Structures are given as structure tokens and as C-alpha cells.
């Protein structure tokens, strides 16, 4: 069963083409790896999948209503004047908070729980932001360069988590320069020349 179907979508910005006539589907329990050079529109495509950005032409359809989506983009959505725990409390309500705190420990962040988030290193902030995805079960997981800045052990943790979610029927769409250890469809975005 398909979760999302893109039908001949194009995106132009200031009359410049980013991509053109793209068609694909994302099925339940499968992963889509979006590849392409810098500026080929990978992040934009993810945002179109999420429904944040509207494609200039074509249609993107969410086939299943009430799909629960989790997303982590370039921006971490972390309040840097709060401690990590306070941040998690803002994101999660009662039910998922325990699992969030569990991940917090497994990712080795308990050392910094009393610091404010601004003092965390880049990798630590990234881990903290990833908990948003890890601790909340979702039908569709959308990740923009999730492996950047992570150390090997947390990279393995993330890979394992994604593997598991897919086997339980969730879908995944991600961009990554590092090849993820997940069997996935690949979508190559070519750099469009504007002549």
C-alpha cells in the first residue's frame, strides 16, 4: 500500500527550475533515499513530501488520512536557552516522555543534562534533536541528513531504529551523503541546467 504518491511534480524558484516532472511513490514499510548534488533540491523535495512547500506544478498526495509524521531537518528545533530535559518536556507529552528520557540515556547525553542546550556540542545537539524522531512512533519518518555529526555508536543506534521501524510497517524518506544501511529505493535528483 502506498503512503504518498507524487505525480509529475516540478518546483521552480524565482523562475529557475529545481526539478521537473518527478513521479514516485512511497510504500508502507519501505524507504526512499533521495540523492543528488548540492543545490539539487533534496531538502525542498522533503519539504514538499511533508506538505510544507507546495510544488509549482503537479500533485503530491497523502493517500492515507491521519498519517503520523516525524521530521528532522537542518534546523534542530532546540531551544538553546533551556536544558535538554526541558526541551524534551516541551516536545513530548506524558506518554512518550519516558521513552524520550530512555533514548536520552542511551545516546549518552545524561552527562550534560544540567547544561543549557547552547553549551552542547554540535553532535550532542543533533542527538538531542533526533530524540524527537526516535521516541515518537510514526507512519512516516522524514530525515534530512540525519547522520551528519553523529559518532559511530549513535549512528548504529539510529540505523537499527530505522531498520526496526521499517520492518514494523513505517515508511522512511531521507537524504544522506552517507549510504544508509537500509535497503531502500533510490531517487536521483540531477542538477537542472537553466539555459
Amino acid at each position: 500500500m502506498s503512503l504518498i504518491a507524487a505525480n509529475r511534480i516540478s518546483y521552480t524558484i524565482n523562475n529557475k527550475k529545481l526539478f521537473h516532472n518527478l513521479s514516485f511513490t512511497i510504500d508502507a514499510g519501505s524507504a526512499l533515499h533521495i540523492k543528488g548534488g548540492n543545490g539539487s533540491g533534496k531538502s525542498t523535495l522533503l519539504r514538499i513530501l511533508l506538505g510544507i512547500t507546495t510544488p509549482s506544478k503537479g500533485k503530491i498526495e497523502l493517500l492515507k488520512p491521519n498519517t503520523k509524521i516525524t521530521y528532522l531537518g537542518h534546523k534542530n528545533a532546540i531551544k538553546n536557552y533551556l536544558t535538554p530535559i526541558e526541551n524534551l518536556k516541551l516536545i513530548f507529552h506524558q506518554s512518550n516522555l519516558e521513552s524520550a528520557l530512555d533514548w536520552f540515556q542511551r545516546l549518552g547525553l545524561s552527562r550534560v543534562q544540567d547544561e543549557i542546550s547552547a553549551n552542547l556540542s554540535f553532535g550532542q545537539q543533533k542527538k538531542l534533536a533526533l530524540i524527537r524522531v526516535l521516541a515518537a512512533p510514526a507512519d512516516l519518518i522524514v530525515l534530512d541528513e540525519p547522520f551528519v555529526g553523529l559518532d559511530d555508536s549513535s549512528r548504529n543506534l539510529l540505523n537499527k531504529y530505522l531498520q526496526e521501524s521499517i520492518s514494523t510497517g513505517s515508511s522512511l524518506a531521507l537524504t544522506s551523503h552517507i549510504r544508509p544501511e537500509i535497503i531502500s529505493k533510490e531517487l536521483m535528483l540531477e542538477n537542472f541546467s537553466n539555459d
Partner: protein
Amino acid sequence: MIKIFQSEFFKLRKKLRTWLGPLLIMVLVLIAFPLSIDISQYDLNRFYFSIIVVALLMISFLSTEGIFLEDYEDGSLEQVYLVEQDFYKFVLAKVLTFVLLIGVPMAGIGSVFSILNGISINEVPKIFFMMFLSNLLLFNLFAFGSSLSINKGAILGVLATLPLALPIIILLGRGVRTIQHGIGFEGVMALMVGSGLLVASITPLIISATLKTHLE
């Protein structure tokens, strides 16, 4: 809804500079004005309200200038968007939090300073209530302005929203006059309550549309 409201309140409370700064500036302006002018107490009583009103205008502009900037830049806004039915509530909660944490104390400061200028104690609740309502209107309006310009700074905000703020200022000035003269207060009050409720419920919708445009 209460959950969103609580977390907005929590975040703003943690940002001392954002809410305490404007209030201190307001106190400074209201103290500096009488010191900087060489006129009698009688004349001062006539003019001082105008300064309080202009201070309300400026400080509410100042305090809402970056109201959505932080959430826009750190990506929280995108995350809120994904739970789309919450976008209106989010904006509403945010603006109301600002009104409660900055607007209400501002109205308090304004009314205290109006006592110092020959308003009797009995009239203070009226003054306070009126200033609170005009702050509600102004915060909504300037929140709209800052959602338009998000990271483009104050000049744009002034140009885009100051013209729209003038009716509120006129209404507030009119209201203060009715208190000084002791007649017609209820009429102005009813108008302010009505427009306050209307604006406070419609503006978040417009702001949501604006923020969505920014996210695209």
C-alpha cells in the same frame, strides 16, 4: 490548547531580556519625560497621557518585534506546522502569552504613572482595563507585522503596521478623555472590548497564513 499555552508561557518566562527589557524601557521613558521638559505640573497633567499612550505604542512594537523569529530560525515553526491543526492555536497562545507577560504589566505601569499625574485612585481600574485592551489590540497587530517581516527588521515592521495601529491609538486617546471628563466611558469601552475580541480571534488566522508563506 492549555498544553501549548503552558509551554509558550514557560519559554517566554525563561527569556528575561525579552519580557523584562521592554518594561524597563517603558519605566525609563515615563520617568525621563517629565524630567526633560520645563513646564508646570498643570500642563504636564494635560500632556502626560499622550506620552503614556505613545510609550504603549512603542514598547508593544519593541516587545513583539522578534515574536516569531526564534521559532522560525531554530525550526520549531516547521515542527508545529506538521501538526497542522495546531497552527492557529499556537499563534493564539503565543500572542496571548506575550499580552499576559508583557502587556498586562505595561498596562499596570501605565496606570501607576497616571496616578502620579492627577488621576484619582478610583479611576485607575478603568485606565488599567483600557490600557490592557489596547495592548491586546496592539500586540495582535504588531505580531502580524513581525510575522510579515520575520527576519527583516524593524523598519519594515513600522512601515507595514504602524498605519494600522493609528485607529487603536485614537480609540485609546478618546477613552482617556472620557475618563478625564467623566462621561461616555461605557461606549468607548464596549467598542474596545468588541474590537479586542474580534481582532484577537481573527489576527491569529492571518498570522498563520503569513507564517505558512514564510515556511514554503
